[in-house]
């Protein structure tokens, strides 16, 4: 699988520079402008798009077929995309968690409970778009899966805009830390299920 991941990393650094540039712009805006969760959530959603872009690129270049002639299992091919997703999500999340820390400490409004529950939201935002999109894309291909992917992206963006207006604790008796734990656990569970489903779909796909 090292071969697959190294190939994806080469391609990301050649083709996905726009994603990295956008992340840097959003980071600057998030730090300099008035606090708005959108500036934090959107780059995290964007980082989840990298593996989907890679799948689309693989199909266009016929790498998906070429890789099947190499000593990889189909499960490894799926796993490589999930691992790439985790790498970029983790880096983005770490950067924005640090940015949020700087922002809130500077604004003297730092509250650990709120901070960690928002990090949990960022974590969910970066993971959930690929979580729902991957199985569809692995089953039908990037072209056909693209429509579903836009629906998921639209929903996620709407959620990030509505987020400041939602006072979850007002109708759910849960602490901020508890909420963060629930969100993280649910996200990890969904991501794992998505991973297994994608392997199942891809193993049956015909090329």
């Amino acid at each position, binding site marked *: 699988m*090292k*071969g*697959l991941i*190294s*190939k994806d990393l*080469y*391609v990301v650094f*050649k*083709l996905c520079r726009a994603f990295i540039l956008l992340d840097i712009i959003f980071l600057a805006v998030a730090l300099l402008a008035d606090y708005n969760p959108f500036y934090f959530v959107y780059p995290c959603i964007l980082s989840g798009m990298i593996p989907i872009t890679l799948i689309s*690129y693989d199909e266009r*270049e*016929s*790498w*998906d*077929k*070429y*890789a*099947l*002639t*190499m*000593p*990889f*299992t189909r499960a490894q091919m799926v796993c490589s995309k999930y691992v790439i997703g985790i790498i970029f999500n983790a880096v983005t999340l770490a950067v924005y968690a640090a940015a949020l820390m700087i922002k809130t400490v500077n604004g003297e409004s730092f509250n650990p409970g709120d901070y960690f529950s928002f990090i949990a939201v960022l974590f969910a935002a970066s993971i959930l778009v690929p979580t729902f999109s991957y199985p569809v894309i692995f089953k039908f291909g990037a072209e056909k899966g693209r429509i579903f992917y836009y629906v998921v992206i639209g929903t996620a963006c709407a959620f990030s805009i509505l987020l400041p207006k939602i006072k979850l604790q007002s109708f759910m008796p849960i602490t901020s830390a508890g909420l963060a734990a629930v969100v993280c656990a649910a996200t990890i569970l969904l991501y794992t299920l998505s991973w297994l489903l994608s392997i199942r779909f891809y193993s*049956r796909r*015909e*090329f």
Partner: protein
Amino acid sequence: MNAIEIKGLCKRYKGFSLDNLSLTLPSGCIMGLIGENGAGKSTTIKLILDMISRDSGSITLLGRDNRRDSRLLKEDIGVVLDNIGIPSVFTPKQVAKVMSLSYKNWDDTAFYRYLRKFSLPENKPFKEFSRGMKMKLGIAAALSHNAKLLLLDEATSGLDPVVRDEILDIFSEFTRDETHSILISSHIVSDLEKICDYIAFLHNGKLLLCEEKDLLKESYAIVRCTPEMFEKIDRSTVIGKKENAYGVEVIVQKSAVPRGFEKHPVDIEQLFIFMVKESVQ
């Protein structure tokens, strides 16, 4: 040991079926899979590589089941597909790095030797290569992990005659080692005639014949005669017949040609066209 053994292979699609295909490629030989577009050549190669699922039949490669030992087998198989599949942003150097992490037996020295032999630049992106250069890079990669079996799907199509000839020489050189074999599909029959030991004809998903090339050429002849003379030939020995203003052109079993008829040698392309287009069956 046989490099490829296919028995009773079937794959059904809407509007096309690969029907009960059986063929054997002995080690150390080159087999040419000939057929018109849509005859089933790529389907056969995809089934061999387990890229699509078969409906029935069995495939053994280098003595192993192609599905059970898929990953192990692919270490020993070099593949060149029509679209090659190397990412367009990759340079040959990056191809070598990725391949060295993918194949246990990757041989960097061999790869760079092929790059020099093919005059391929190490640092130029794949997207800037000509079709011939792209194909050569695909072939260099396929030949640089000590593969025992090469599967080539239309690997010479779209190339100019000089490059094709160069590539065919490399394939012939590869099978000098008796443990090396090649299955090559093409609709450029003249290419296959140059290098193949065995010829398999596919038409509409059916195997019309699979035979040693030399035996085929020895067994059949072209006879040009009048319609009256044609009546003297045993119909069961006729492969195909073409009538024109000058008379009748027939491909027939050499041994069945009556005395007094002039026999001309047949090439594989003529044999294939007569079997497909001018069949009397």
